[in-house]
């Protein structure tokens, strides 16, 4: 046990975190109609950080990361991503979306395009990369997620775990500086979760800045350098994984952890 913990610390040390702040969220608020989903969120993410966001369902964690690439619009406060402020300027939004990759719970692959076409679509149309280069990049990342042989199949022909790995490769093909994961494993069968988590871990080892909404606490212990617990639209507690799991401070966190770990 101790050995493992040491290993993890060593792993974490390998993944250097720089001082450069890539995401700044300042007193951000959001409402759905009358419902206050996100309340006074303040969060700074440095380059290379791996953040895991957890919390009970309906606590606003997905909404938080969807605000970062403006899939949801916040109504008050500032979000600054990679030096660009998210405001009503559509050019900024396009710029940020090109820099921020996102992986969805339900994969959202485009069923009418092959795996390769799924991966080259955005580089070609958003980054204006020549098709050949885009395909090379795509194959590179498909190899990395270990499914280069599926490149000419259609998403429907792949298993859930494979689809999710394609979705990760698709996001990586834009060479994003930040990756957002919105419960990437919760729609998967148990035996497929590992292959996706492995992919994410190797990504983390390469120093990718990641924000990950997930309930995979093993993953959080292994790769995260910060765990954020949200409840009722607020950040209730954030800490490094070790103290977070071993010595939670808030009662809500304790309750939550006992519910998901206590069996």
């Amino acid at each position, binding site marked *: 046990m101790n050995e493992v913990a040491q290993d993890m610390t060593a792993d974490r040390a390998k993944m250097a975190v720089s001082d450069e702040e890539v995401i700044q969220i300042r007193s951000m608020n959001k409402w759905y109609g009358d419902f206050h989903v996100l309340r006074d969120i303040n969060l700074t993410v440095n380059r290379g950080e791996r953040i895991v966001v957890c919390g009970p369902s309906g606590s606003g964690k997905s909404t938080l990361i969807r605000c970062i*690439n403006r*899939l949801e619009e916040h109504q008050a406060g500032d979000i600054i991503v990679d030096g660009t402020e998210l405001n009503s300027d*559509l050019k900024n939004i*396009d*710029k940020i*979306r*090109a820099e*921020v*990759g*996102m992986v*969805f719970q*339900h*994969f*959202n*692959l*485009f*069923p*009418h395009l092959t795996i390769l076409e799924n991966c080259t*679509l*955005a580089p070609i*149309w*958003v980054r204006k990369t020549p098709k050949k280069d885009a395909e090379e990049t795509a194959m590179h990342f498909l190899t990395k997620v270990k499914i280069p042989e599926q490149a000419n199949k259609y998403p*429907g022909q792949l298993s859930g775990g494979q689809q999710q790995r394609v979705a990760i490769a*698709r996001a990586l093909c*834009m060479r994003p500086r930040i990756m957002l994961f919105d419960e990437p494993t919760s729609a998967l069968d148990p035996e497929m979760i590992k292959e996706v988590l492995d992919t994410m871990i190797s990504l983390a080892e390469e120093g990718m800045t990641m924000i990950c909404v997930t309930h995979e606490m093993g993953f959080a212990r292994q790769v995260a350098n910060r765990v954020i617990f949200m409840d009722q639209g607020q950040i209730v507690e954030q800490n490094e994984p070790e103290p977070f799991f071993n010595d939670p401070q808030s009662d809500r966190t304790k309750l939550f952890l006992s519910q998901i770990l206590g069996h």
Partner: protein
Amino acid sequence: MTDMPNTGNSALYVRREMLAQQPPPPSTVGVVGWLRENLFRGPVNSTITVLILLMILWLAPGIASWAFIDATWNAKSLSECRQLGEGACWAVIVERFGQFIYGFYPAEERWRPNLAFLLMLLAFAFALFDEVPGVSKEVWARIRPGGLVFSAVFPFIAYWLIWGGSIWGPIGLVATPVVGYFAAVGVDKLNSQYGPFLPDTLPVPSIVGLVAALVWLLGGMQLVAGALTAISPEFFPLWLPAVESKSLGGFLLATIIGVAGIVLSLPIGILLALGRRSGLFFIQTVCIVFIECMRGVPLITLLFVASTTLSFLFPPDSNLDELLRVVIMVTIFASAYMAEVIRGGLASLPPGQYEAADAMGLNYWQATRLIIMPQALKVSIPNIVNTFIGLFKDTTLVAVIGLLDVIGLITATRADSAWNGINWELYIFAALFFFIACFAMSRYSMYLERKLATDRR
């Protein structure tokens, strides 16, 4: 087989030998079983079967003798027919077959609509089929991009083939987007080559392209085409004898109106469907009002509009052909239905598709063109085919404003002194024609629906 061990009162049972499969009782299989299952299942079912059989036995001989045995195939008039046989007088169909198909299209030019029809099948094949039996997948994939260009240009070819005249007009129309595109690209190239001198706040190249296309469409085209037309009859054999719209009739007319209506209504329908889902209040309202109004009135009233008031909506000196006016109204009518079909396709897409496209940084038109529309259209194809079937059947209504489609020709035939009094044969012929065409198409659409259902799984 019966070496079952007797072990006293014990509940132990062990089968030593497996039973071979036995045939079922004979009354449940074979012809007898089939008959029992499907025709004589209980007294009510048996009665129904017998009644229907009796009815068929009663009707069939009469119909057969009328339609085939006693029918007359060659005669010059109805009275001659009646002398030759008691049955149907198919002679009228034989005599006027060409007319029913082509209307009064000049006989020596009929190869033109025939060719256009064949090319149309080819154009549809390119546009609709992912694969074609008899052509290998790779070959088809390689020729398809070129084929799609052909599909896009086909309407102009068809127009030229059917109406004839100079080819330069249709070519000019085809050239319009090309002219616009090259103007835009040219300006863009100049701008980037000789230092940016255009403000980047305005999409100048696009505007220049649009203006160039408009100038070409409104004046340039006529100039160039006029000049070439003056030369071409001598230099190129690109001139066909002109045929007036009035000469078009019969099933040719129905096909022209139906196909033109459905093809033209597709882009309008797509825009209306997008507008209706746009979330922009004004645009949405305009689209809804348009769609609901068009779907709320009968086609026949729109045909009245085509024949009477439509020309009032255009500048006083514009002289629109009646067929063109009908096509305009039919297109407007069909586009409302098309919009609803495509809206259904759009609604069937999971919201994740929109989100994923957004998250990648694709803008609205890119996402629509690359992600949303390909999927929505594919889902909609069966319903588009069904809309086409409906429209094709509805083309018979144009008889009400005096166009000589099948119904119009039938009326004319019945008024002819030689055939005065003939009835059934004409209607049955028309019905049969429509049935074959529509039934084939509806089968195709059902096949597509099944294929889609399995593809999605």
